[in-house]
């Protein structure tokens, strides 16, 4: 069982997601407690990335996307609320599969989001604070005006995490953040996730089951659009209730 102390920060109720006629997420009800790391696992095409991208409405750009059910953030429905979608995206940050720094300096990569959203504070201070939180400061402090694209893949991904942190979000969505990285950089990102869990709610999609086991407290296993099992990570990996989960965990398919 997942104990949601008080309110959950993200929640779906009977969520169905379609791309045109194709149903990619079926009747998923899920409550994500605050300040935890939750892993979404499952074979390719099971709907885990689609579900993740629903939480900050990144699916809006896909013409054939439509849904039924409810997606709640802090209790309010993010699709039906009158609040501007950009406001939700500010509070629910995202880190993508491939590092995607902007074509500008390291400092500007971080300050851009806050600047366009009317951040009032000191941008230099913000840049330093976010780079420190993303464990990148020591490596880049002497070249803040260099292009973000000049960094290594692992550094670029940490820059993207710093960029997400700069918006002061409550949730950070991570869509296979290490799949394009070498083992060393992966380790650095995982360490960072451990640090960040104290202040943020993190949802991470991963293909790497060891990674899910290492970084998350809760794990949701999806298969073919269905949420098969959702429980404490230790329970999912030691004694899953469902046979399908067990088969996937031990690598019988997927």
């Amino acid at each position, binding site marked *: 069982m997942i104990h949601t102390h008080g309110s959950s920060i993200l929640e779906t109720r009977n969520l169905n997601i379609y791309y045109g006629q194709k149903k990619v997420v079926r009747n998923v009800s899920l409550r994500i407690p605050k300040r935890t790391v939750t892993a979404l696992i499952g074979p390719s095409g099971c709907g885990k990335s689609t579900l993740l991208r629903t939480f*900050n409405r*990144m699916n809006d*750009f896909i013409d054939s996307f439509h849904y039924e059910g409810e997606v709640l953030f802090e209790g309010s429905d993010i699709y039906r609320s009158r609040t501007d979608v*950009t*406001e939700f*995206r*500010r509070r629910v*940050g*995202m880190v*993508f*599969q*491939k590092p*995607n*720094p*902007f*074509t*500008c300096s390291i400092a500007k990569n971080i300050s*851009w*989001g806050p600047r*366009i*959203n009317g951040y009032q504070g000191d941008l230099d201070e913000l840049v330093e604070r976010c780079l420190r939180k993303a464990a990148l400061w020591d490596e880049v402090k002497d070249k803040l005006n260099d292009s973000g*694209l000049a960094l290594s893949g692992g550094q670029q991904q940490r820059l*993207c995490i710093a*960029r*997400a942190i700069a*918006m002061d979000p409550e949730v950070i969505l991570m869509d296979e953040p290490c799949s394009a990285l070498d083992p060393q950089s992966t380790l650095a990102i995982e360490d960072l996730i451990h640090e960040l869990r104290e202040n943020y709610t993190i949802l991470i999609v991963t293909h790497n089951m060891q990674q899910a086991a290492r970084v998350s407290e809760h794990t949701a296993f999806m298969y073919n659009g269905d949420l098969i099992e959702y429980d404490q990570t230790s329970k999912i990996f030691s004694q899953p209730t469902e046979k399908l989960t067990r088969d996937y965990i031990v690598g019988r398919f997927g």
Partner: protein
Amino acid sequence: MSSSQRWAGVSAWQQWRERTVLRALFFCALISVLTTLGIIYILVNESVHFFAEVPVLDFVFGTEWAPLFEPRHFGVLPLVCGTLLISLGALVFALPIGLGIAVYTAEYAQGWWQKVLKPILEILAGIPSVVYGYFAITKITPFLQTLYPETEVFNAASASLVIAIMVLPTIASICDDSIRAIPKTLRDGAYALGARKSEVIFQIVLPSALSGILASFILAFSRAIGETMAVTLAAGATPQITANPFVGVQAMTSYIAQVSMGDVAHGTIEYQSIFAVGLMLFLMTLAMNLLSQFIVKRFARKYE
């Protein structure tokens, strides 16, 4: 049984075919190289005769162009000035509008609109330049005269406007391609930070597409410099150094066209002068193209 008995070796016919394909393709490539070299040879060869009589510095820095009447002057600056006045004037209109069209077609236009916009631009690119020239004289110039009555019958502004229309498709199409080439992941990254559409496009996408955009600008400039027919018809044949777009000027290309069509005897200094002007024009467009390649390399960003 060894397998060699079941496989025929490479036949003589196959070997011959491979060699022939290579030779034929090499010949095609050779034609373009030889043509270029031939043109450069002729330009330089005739220019050498010209510069034997007119000192290079007098030509490049001279401010009076009167090649056909005594006393003759071969200062090319009035022609360069005419060309630049018309070309830069054209770019002032064409760059923002062309880029605007590209942003619209690549990012905003939807459905039906998007389907008709590009073909219409391609039609614009297919109209012969003499038609544009005629359009400039019969429509644009009278229109300019209603705005500003002092406008002469032949004037640089009319040529600029019509060239602006001519180079729009080039700019719009290259910018459109380079905007579309920016990966979706980059836009996603910007949207995920709570950015609005125009912020994503103007602050993230366009700076990333800068190399293509600059290249299109330079290509358009090259085309504007080289354009002949429309310029000759619209801007006239008055070589003079002026920044006033409402008076007639003569572009380098117009001079070449004028002399080529007239009855100037071969081997005379007037005849040779068009090769000197042509060489100068060639060097200018060559410099533009090299600059464009440099910019593409310098600003190109690697996306996987």
